């Protein structure tokens, strides 16, 4: 067994950003373990642009965005061991991974979990029907088309208005497929407004809200689906069924933080985010194990993924030096219309970054962070969308005592 100050699980935009910032804070004994052949995570297959506007003030493609961090890590000589799959992280921070040269076992002082997320599947949402070829998630379709030069179908329907689904609608259209429509079970789109404009409207692809797929047909290959309108409880409305002939059904029905290692390490998960409970240092409930990026909560923009990972470096460095961090005794409650917050707990000793999402589309609303009767912050907003994260900085000086906080949007 070897030792390292920090082991980072996953060399995507979160892991790389955390590594670079840690290095610059003087923590240089870092190992990044990456399961794929190259670092960069899912960005490798995201060849569209629009990345980096917040972080770099310019628009980059996914591979370009990733390269910025890959280059920074390489410049510092931070080792990134690729083709390496971590199979276990223990509470006492022993990381075990498989590699063609043998098993890798590292005792770390701190572990940073940046495994990203996976896509929800057909099975997870129980779509009825047969099980032919031609039904796949948007990310699989994207990998086939953008990384492997494999075309997956000609007549396409997309379920779910997630960003990757809409981006794949455009991509498939550009490559000569006919994308008939995008259906979304919710009354509001799940993806960003800019993607609705640039990926659907610009190509004349209709988006039907409050609709879902109720049947899948075909034995060998998909031959068609049935779509129905849904009521406010998201149940199909009888009589609204419509059949579509298609050979491909792409699912963009949500992302789930990939937290099997987190659970194995004994960290508690927040049922709201499906990621770990963390404090303002992005430390999980297991001391010295940190998490950031999509493994913690699903982000709208990769810029925020990197920035969140960068923000944990200071705390992680402090933990490595002192063996502990201030206890996070103040809880942050989700008040009216707030779906979740990161962090869920704070120490109260430090100013911190708060990110959250609202539960529903709201216009002319006010966000309030309060501590009992005491209001720390209010922000007036023209609109708030569930698809967009809200990011705030909260000054520790405004906190009064150790009562719990509440965030609401009304």
């Amino acid at each position: 067994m070897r030792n390292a100050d920090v082991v980072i699980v996953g060399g995507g935009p979160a892991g790389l950003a955390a590594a670079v910032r840690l290095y610059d804070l003087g923590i240089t004994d870092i190992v990044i373990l990456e399961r794929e052949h190259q670092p960069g995570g899912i960005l490798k297959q995201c060849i569209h642009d629009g990345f980096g506007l917040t972080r770099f003030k310019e628009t980059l493609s996914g591979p370009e965005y990733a390269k910025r961090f890959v280059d920074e890590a390489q410049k510092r000589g931070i080792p990134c061991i690729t083709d390496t799959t971590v199979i276990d992280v223990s509470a006492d921070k022993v990381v075990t991974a498989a590699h063609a040269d043998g098993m890798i076992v590292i005792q770390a002082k701190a572990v940073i979990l940046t495994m990203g997320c996976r896509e929800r599947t057909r099975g997870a949402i129980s779509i009825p029907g047969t099980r032919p070829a031609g039904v796949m998630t948007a990310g699989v379709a994207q990998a086939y088309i953008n990384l492997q030069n494999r075309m997956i179908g000609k007549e396409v329907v997309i379920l779910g208005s997630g960003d990757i689904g809409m981006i794949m609608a455009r991509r498939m259209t550009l490559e000569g497929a006919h994308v008939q429509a995008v259906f979304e079970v919710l009354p509001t789109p799940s993806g960003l407004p800019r993607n609705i404009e640039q990926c659907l409207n610009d190509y004349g692809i209709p988006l039907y809200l409050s609709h879902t797929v109720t049947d899948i047909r075909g034995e060998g290959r998909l031959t068609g689906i049935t779509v129905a309108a849904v009521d406010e409880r998201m149940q199909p409305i009888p009589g609204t069924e419509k059949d579509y002939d298609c050979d491909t059904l792409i699912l963009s029905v949500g992302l789930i933080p990939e937290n099997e290692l987190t659970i194995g390490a004994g960290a508690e998960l927040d049922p709201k985010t499906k990621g770990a409970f963390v404090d303002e240092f992005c430390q999980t409930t297991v001391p010295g194990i940190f998490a950031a990026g999509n493994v913690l909560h699903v982000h709208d923009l990769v810029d925020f993924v990197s920035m969140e990972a960068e923000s944990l470096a200071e705390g992680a460095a402090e933990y490595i030096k002192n063996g502990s961090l201030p206890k996070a005794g103040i809880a942050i409650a989700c008040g009216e219309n707030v779906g979740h917050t990161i962090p869920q707990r704070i120490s109260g000793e430090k100013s911190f970054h708060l990110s959250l999402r609202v539960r529903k589309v709201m216009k002319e609303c006010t966000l309030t962070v309060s501590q009992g009767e005491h209001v720390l912050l209010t922000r007036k907003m023209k609109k708030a969308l569930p698809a967009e994260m809200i990011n705030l900085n909260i000054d520790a000086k405004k906190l009064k005592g150790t009562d719990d906080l509440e965030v609401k949007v009304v």
Partner: protein
Amino acid sequence: MKHYDVAIIGGGVIGCAVARELSRWQLSAVVLEKEPDVATGNSSRNTGMLHAGFTYKPGSLKAECAVEGNQEFDRVAAELHIPFRRTGKLVVGFTEHDRENILKFKAIGEKNGVKGLRMIDREEMNRIDPNAGGEFAMYAPSSGILDPMQYTIALAENACRNGAQFLLEHRVTAIHREGESYVIETDKEEVAARWVINCAGAYAADISAMLGYPRYYQRGFKGEYYVLDKKAGVQLSIPVYPAPNDKGGFMTHATPTIDGNVLVGPDSYITEGREDYANRREQLAGLVRDGGKMFKQMRAEYFIRNFAGIRWKNCNPETGEVLDFIVESKRECPNTVNLVGIESPGITCALPLARRAVKLLLEGEKAQGREVKANNRFDPVRPRAKRFYEMTIEEKTAAIEANPDYGQIVCRCENVTRAEILEAIHNPLGVHTLTGVKNRTRAMMGRCQGGYCQTRITEMIEQELKVTPEEICYQKADGYVFTGKVRDCE
């Protein structure tokens, strides 16, 4: 036209068991299977339960073969290197009426020779598994769980190793007798054989008619399932069945799988479609409702996949009464063995039924003055390397040292390595589908359903088998995955 001693129609668990038992003898045998792999029909569409035998009419083939198959299975699993666990089973009740029905079956079980059946109270149930529903239960210690796909594949591979041939993607379309042989037409080439054994499962009644037996009346009892995440699997250690209804049928149950998932199902309703394996919205809703009574952790966040299977039962056409398995060899249909209506507990009964079928064949040969010699080179053992995920860290280290492909994990959810995928791609039966790899390795079977590894596996199939993208298929021969390349630039 190729000539065999025996043609077995159907590569389900029965056909593969018959092929394996036949390969103990010096007889050339061929299995004709319409799909690109074995176990694509109902052999893979069931609970994977090794039944104890307490629900079947005393004296029936179902009862006799279930008890026989159950008792021998530790040896069978060891020979074929398939994972198997005698979990026992709880048949749980809530009401006094349930108790009466359970006691009825306890008496039947005892008559059938099932050992160790006893009634237990909630307190003892809690010691066995607190997540099991119900107020009281019958505990059946001899029930067990296995992977029916692995089992069927193992039987097929063992038969193959001992000399049986498999012709996949060969659908039998007609059979006629020419001289002393049968000529079997398929959608590919014709095959000739002295003997024909009908193991066609869902299509057994059709083949039965082709051979000159009656077209037996069958009804399809369809059942749907949920597959739950291994996170649910760690919360259930024993199959939990509800009390049988007055007709002796079991509805939705919850069963841990040998690989650590949970199956919830099947429900039961009549279907006309021979391969109507589609899931229906209202049935799935029913599974959620009824499954929750058996397994307290039936939660939507655990859903991975759904499937359905159909039990084609021999029935009395007048009364609808469910009849026994049929295993027969009639003089009017010379040199044939007919197995019809083999449904649940078909997995448990596969080898006992196969032995009975082979016995009928050997008796027929003897009556015609043929002495069939034993195959002295028959090896009952089907070797199988330990799975990476089953290995200790020392074993993993040693495996990687011997073969670095063990150090490359392809399927993240199930920890399946490149070495195991390659072995599956080059399987002895020559199966080339994506689900062929899936059923042999568990890659793509986990919670991400291939989101991470499917693209890697199709790439490996293309490279290893040197096929074009268009030739890759998912499960069926016409189930193409790709329409071609995006750009012609490679």
